[in-house]
């Protein structure tokens, strides 16, 4: 090789190392760090003699550098693309959400699959105690003129088991395994809990609208399915609410590239090019109702896991309810719509006063979250409401 190309190669190689290195500290290159998914930023290095001597500072620098290296967005996406496009699978990670690539680009969260084929082992006495408490809270709320509705959302895996690769079932059939939620199902009726059985409803709907209850790229019920869920919830709540939810009418049902919770798993995969895997899905848009004045609209308190967001996303723009609050996992309080973190310490809430402004309490949890039994919400209310 001649001298000039050699020099250019050396400059190109060392220059590339320099540019990526500098991009770690200064944004030199385009699209460097916008990755999707929830991560905790690594702690900044500590600069003191003990930390320096023990090497803790250097290890922290190493971690920080890995999390901020130049072109990180491209590195992560390129590696994921190779794994998915060439091998049809997702990146295995020591922690974080484990996504499983199913048939025909259907994506699943791994722990939903495990839950579906692991027989529930929660003692029945424990279930009964928890359900008794829910019933007590329901009664206490009813005494204050406030209906309570427990919405159990279905699992994508249980709705579309045929899309999960057989090897993940471990030789088991999810239809023949009783999970904790499935064991508890008859007890909800026995204790008279106002309960919306999402999984059962989805099995009914699967006969008439087989493919759209979940999108291939999302882990939550689709917006398309949620419009039907919202109608069900309205029908359940309206007869007992001070201010009923007005009718919300569909403006359009557009077929479009998935968005929001309809694409959360695909987004989490962080591919370089995900267009081929964005299968269009129907997306409902409601007409913003004007007939009922704001003061006559109901105010609903939501206590929920991530399945609650799709309900909120559709209901609030339709102007069918008043702005209210969401208690996400009963840990953080958000103002909705807008999802603004109120940074409120829920342990210091005066629940009697707080609940006075609401017309209904709706709790949303996924069937696999059954064991958490409301993340402490029922215990708190049972204790604080006489």
């Amino acid at each position: 090789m001649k001298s000039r190309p050699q020099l250019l190669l050396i400059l190109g190689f060392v220059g590339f190392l320099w540019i990526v290195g500098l991009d770690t500290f200064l944004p030199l290159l385009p699209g460097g760090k916008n990755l999707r998914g929830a991560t905790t930023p690594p702690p900044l290095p500590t600069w003191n003699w003990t930390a320096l001597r023990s090497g803790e500072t250097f290890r922290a620098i190493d971690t920080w550098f890995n999390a901020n290296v130049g072109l990180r967005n491209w590195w992560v996406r390129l590696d994921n693309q190779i794994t998915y496009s060439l091998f049809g699978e997702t990146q295995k990670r020591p922690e974080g959400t484990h996504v499983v690539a199913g048939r025909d680009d259907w994506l699943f969260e791994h722990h939903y699959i495990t839950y579906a084929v692991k027989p529930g082992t929660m003692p029945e006495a424990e279930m009964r105690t928890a359900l008794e408490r829910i019933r007590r809270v329901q009664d206490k709320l009813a005494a204050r003129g406030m209906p309570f509705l427990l919405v159990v959302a279905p699992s994508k895996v249980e709705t579309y088991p045929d899309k999960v690769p057989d090897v993940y079932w471990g030789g088991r059939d999810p239809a023949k395994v009783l999970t904790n939620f499935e064991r508890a199902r008859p007890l909800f009726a026995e204790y008279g809990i106002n309960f919306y059985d999402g999984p059962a409803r989805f099995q009914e709907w699967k006969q008439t609208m087989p493919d759209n209850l979940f999108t291939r790229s999302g882990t939550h019920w689709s917006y398309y399915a949620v419009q039907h869920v919202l109608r069900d919830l309205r029908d359940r709540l309206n007869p007992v609410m001070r201010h009923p939810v007005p009718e919300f009418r569909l403006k359009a049902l557009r077929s479009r590239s998935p968005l929001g919770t309809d694409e959360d798993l695909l987004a989490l995969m962080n591919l370089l090019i995900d267009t081929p895997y964005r299968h269009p899905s129907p997306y409902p848009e409601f007409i913003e109702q004007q007939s009922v004045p704001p003061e006559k609209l109901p105010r609903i308190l939501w206590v929920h896991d991530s399945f609650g967001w799709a309900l909120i996303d559709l209901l609030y723009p339709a102007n069918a309810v008043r702005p209210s609050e969401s208690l996400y996992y009963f840990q953080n309080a958000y103002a909705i719509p807008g999802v603004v973190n109120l940074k409120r310490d829920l342990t210091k809430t005066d629940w009697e006063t707080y609940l006075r402004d609401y017309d209904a309490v709706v709790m949303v949890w996924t069937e696999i979250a059954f064991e958490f039994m409301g993340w402490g919400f029922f215990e708190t209310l049972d204790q604080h409401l006489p």
Partner: protein
Amino acid sequence: MVFSSLLFLYAYLPVFLALYYLAPLRHRNVVALAGSLFFYGWGEPGFLVILIGVCVFGYYISLWLARLPVEARAARRWVLTLGLGVYLGLLLWFKYSNFFAAQLNGVLGWLQQGGILWTHVVLPLGISFFTFQKISYLVDVYRGTSKPARSLVDYLLFVTLFPQLIAGPIIRYHDVAVQIVSRGHSREKFLAGAWRFLLGLARKVLIANPLGAVADRVFAQDLGTLPMPYAWIGILCYAFQIYFDFSGYSDMAIGLGRMMGFEFMENFERPYTSRSITEFWRRWHISLSNFMRDYLYIPLGGNRTTPWRVGFNLWFVFLVSGFWHGASWNFVCWGAYHGLLLSLERAVGLKRLGRIPAVPATVFTFLLVLASWVLFRAASLTDALTYFSRLADWSSWANVRNDLEFLWPDVISARTWGVLGIAAFFSFLPESWWTRRGWDEVVPSTRPQAVLRVLLGTACLILASAALGNQSYNPFIYFRF
């Protein structure tokens, strides 16, 4: 710091290369030394004191040795013994004292006596390698093979030169003494070094790391119930992991050295193509084999003694070599196993072994090596024996399908199957294939070869960076709270 990290690749390396090449020629050793000490001190700065302290001792004791007249044989031998005693004493203390204390406590426990109180001793990074280098220097000076280093800086550079400091190749002083004083820097050499470095990086990051993850997963299971297919996958992955990891590291060391103008010896020569264990050890960790030959086997009498003694010498050298690899009975047994196989091959006769056709000989040798890796990788001898039994448990196949916590795709992904295939393909390709196509040459001799190296090198850098970048990204779908 390790070579296969983003911090090394995109922070340390560009800064070091710039400083090294911007420095005047006469100051490059000082820059290289400063860079090496910084490299070593990163992560465990406390050990720098030990490293420098032992180097200062080594430099002055070798000067003392060199100044003693040749006729003062007893005094020279005494100084040599003192030097070797200090080096080996430090190695014993840092690397083996925990092991011996545990053994002693085991015996005391067996005798129903109270154990000794012991504070765990932390192992300084690379001590096994730099101790051997210092021994080679001291012995070379004693034998007169090399003159002592002209300055403390030169000696420190020989020991601490960062490309080879942590994991070899074990450089003998007489191999690099001239290069430390004067070495050529050229564009060809730099590019050849960069190519070799990137090749090593890819071997380590793209092949060894994913295979290592499989092996780690398998060996972390309850070995007593490990299904047979997993046991085979685990050990195959480990066999290729250790080869691509170690040889990849050596490639990176040789490449970095070349970028700085140094030429280090080759450390691996396609060991899995060997047709006998004797050949395997000529191709695996060559710098260690050479060190053991020059500084232990030959002083023990080497080949020039009775056949029984030769056999014993071989076995003993490998026993020591096994113990050098790690302070546990597994490594001792691993060394003894290899020593035994070598002694047996010597007894049977290498010429006779050479008559076995290539394919069965290579497969048989690989299986023998595979068995040795079980000893090397298992956490204890009991685990190793259990693992051997799992390799032959035909009744355990059904468990592969049923254990939800340990499903086949969770153990080995399709991508890792691909990596395993690539690793096996390149490991078993015969030497002639590489030579015919010019891949053995340091500098490419044809334009297509040069272009191919540039393209492959670029791909190695991009893909390895992608894999490294992704390793540290473990997102959740949402924050729960």
